[in-house]
């Protein structure tokens, strides 16, 4: 058996689904700025680049990555800047419908993620948490980074 670890998650909503990422690897949560500079010839899910305190951060639209069709924006949209490899180069913003909450839990609470059919481009999840009858799928950040990189 694996050691039981305390984990801190940041959950967010993408339409009807709730996901979460490791909160320790979240650098910033931003409002969607007015101008995201589009990058020509980039994959569809790359919204563009933004200026975050003098650094260039690419922003990926999680709704497209998750295979959602409706990508109309609203006021609650946020960008979560994650840093999977803990260096400047690996920082990327992911655009989500709404940021929900910080969850403290234990690794033993995680269940294996079972998905009905493919959820967009993501191939692996670190697990699923059931809180108040709601499934929260924990995104494997490295997998996400690989997808954006491709």
């Amino acid at each position, binding site marked *: 058996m694996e050691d039981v670890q305390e984990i801190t998650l940041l959950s967010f909503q993408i339409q009807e689904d709730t996901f979460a990422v490791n909160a320790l690897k979240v650098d910033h949560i931003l409002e969607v700025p007015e101008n995201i500079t589009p*990058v020509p010839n*980039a994959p569809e899910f*790359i919204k563009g680049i933004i*200026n975050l305190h*003098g*650094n*260039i951060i690419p922003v990926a639209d999680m709704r497209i990555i998750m295979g959602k069709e409706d990508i109309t924006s609203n006021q609650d949209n946020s960008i979560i800047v994650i840093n999977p490899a803990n260096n*400047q180069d690996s920082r990327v913003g992911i655009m989500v419908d709404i940021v929900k909450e910080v969850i403290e839990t234990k690794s033993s609470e995680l269940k294996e993620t079972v998905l009905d059919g493919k959820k967009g481009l993501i191939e692996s999840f670190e697990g699923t948490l059931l809180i108040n009858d709601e499934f929260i799928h924990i995104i494997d950040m490295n997998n996400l980074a690989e997808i954006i990189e491709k």
Partner: protein
Amino acid sequence: MLDKFKAKFVEESMDNLQDLEESLFLLEKDLENKELIERIFRAMHSLKGGGAMFGFNHLSDFTHHLETIFDWVRNNKLAVTSDLITLTFSAIDHIKNLIKTGDLTDEQELKGHNQFILRLQSVLSDSASTLSVHSTVDSQNINDEISESKTYLINFIPQEELLQNGTNPLYLLDDIHALGEAISIAYTHKVPSLELIDITANYCLWQILLNTSESLNEIKDVFIFVEDECELQIDLIADSNILQKPECIEIIKKARKGNSLLKIEDFQSLSQLKPSSQELESGEEKKKITAIKEHKISSIRVASHKIDELVTLVSELVTIQAQLSLYSESNEDPVIVSLSENIQKLSRQLRENAFDISLIPLQSELMRFQRLVRDLSKDQGKDIDFVIEGGDLELDKNIIEHLTDPLLHILRNSIDHGIELPEERISSGKSPKGTILFKAFHSGANVIIEVSDDGKGMDLEYIRQKAISKEIVDQNAVLTDKEVLDLLFVSGFSTKDAVSDVSGRGVGMDVVRRKIANIRGEVSIDTEKGKGTTITIRLPLTLSIIDGLLVKVGANQYVIPISAIDKIHALDPSQLKKSFNNVVVLDKEQIPYIDLRKVFNAPEVEHDVIQMVMIKAEDRITGVIVDSVIGEYQTVVKPLGRYLKKQEILSGATIMGDGTLAMVVDTSRLLMERKSKKVAG
């Protein structure tokens, strides 16, 4: 915490190794340079010590053997040979490996490691015979070594207890004589008469004149176990052997007779040493020590990420400052305007300083090049003089990091395929020794690095034929020499199977060009059959700042590096419509062009006039169509990062004064893209 020290050790060891390699190179040219030998020994010594401390046991053990070899060398027990230097070089490689990997776990590697240690040990045992000869030769053949030997005056004044503690001073004096030619003067005037004597006490003291080529340490070590029981002073009195000079013999006679102690000054007239030679000597030593200290203080070690951070912060400051300027101009508050101007001045200086800090001398990488040339030429039996000019030139560390591999590749090509074997060179009327000249210099806002060899040059016809056989060019194509050479850069032109091919110069040049292009550099080749080849790399001074032309394409702003721009032309859009095959006629010249609006999929807007930026690359002009030109702009380039590295035409982005972003166009990539498309279809 320990990890931090460990990382520091690794970093420092790498420095140490570099120093070691540098010294070895110098030693190879000057086999008996004591100072170098000492430096080498020191470097090994600290590697060993640090290695043990931080748990690099194999490293420590291995270096210990190497250190012993150089301990022998510095004690004249072992001569420096070219073989020894070669062995040491490969030992350094092994040490590097041990530093990177830590202790070995792989069976095979461990075996190799142990075999290497045996090799090192055999160096010592092989010299066994020479050793025993040497130590006896020392005293007899001392006259042959006059030039190297020095004369010391040793004052040995034991305490009374010396004998009770089991020391036999006669032996020590005998040992002094074994170090070279020596004359001892024993002073017995303190011996009391029978009635008063404590017979087991020591009453004698000695002065010894010693001429030896041994080090001061070796002399001191004679007295190692009596140092607490005696006064000992060793002074250099002459840089040569003065023992047989009549004046010296006279001085000694007098001292013996009169029981009067010799003084250093007594020998002044006898030596070439300047007055107060002894002070001079220690003064020199002091100077050396302070020199080292000063050296340490004059530079400090900073983790490179901290410099990156500094540059980032300064860039941010510059950006904010630009915003402030914009605001103050529109605000017309004289106080703010003047404050803003001051901040602008300061931040510009600060920026220049910060960029200057991130420059490092090319020197740091040269060692690897020297190693490569040395090792490869030895392997291949080629005699090559590797000349370096401009090694102190400074470049952005990020550029240097990316420059090393391509340069190694170019050098390898020069050695493998350029420089001929000595006999071959003789038969073609050249000196048997080939030369590779590595030259770095400034040229405007660029740095040029040239690697030229006086080897056999490239066979253009061969390259042409090969390109034809690979269906890269048409059989009937008429190509200039330059165009033929450009074929070398076409990817897939030369492949690995060509490595062993003697005419295969230019192997992997496509990779070289790509890597150089990544740091916004350009590569070109000049060659003359039979005479040699020159590869020229043109680089920007720094990666993080460029002078750019800000242009607009669609809704986006882009920066085109000024260095690539020849001039700007305004065009009537109708001129493009008339053109076919993307060529526009200007001043009766056909100019191929690239429409950035198409490349970037920007919606085509009707303009009265559009702008064509003329890009010059490799003597060709290509037009780049943009919607409008905004102006010149000096800017800090930020990388787009790993997620957007596929966007090859863009080399980065820059933050404008108002906080918006503009992307930087990589012109050479843009042109290449166009070329490869053309080649493809």
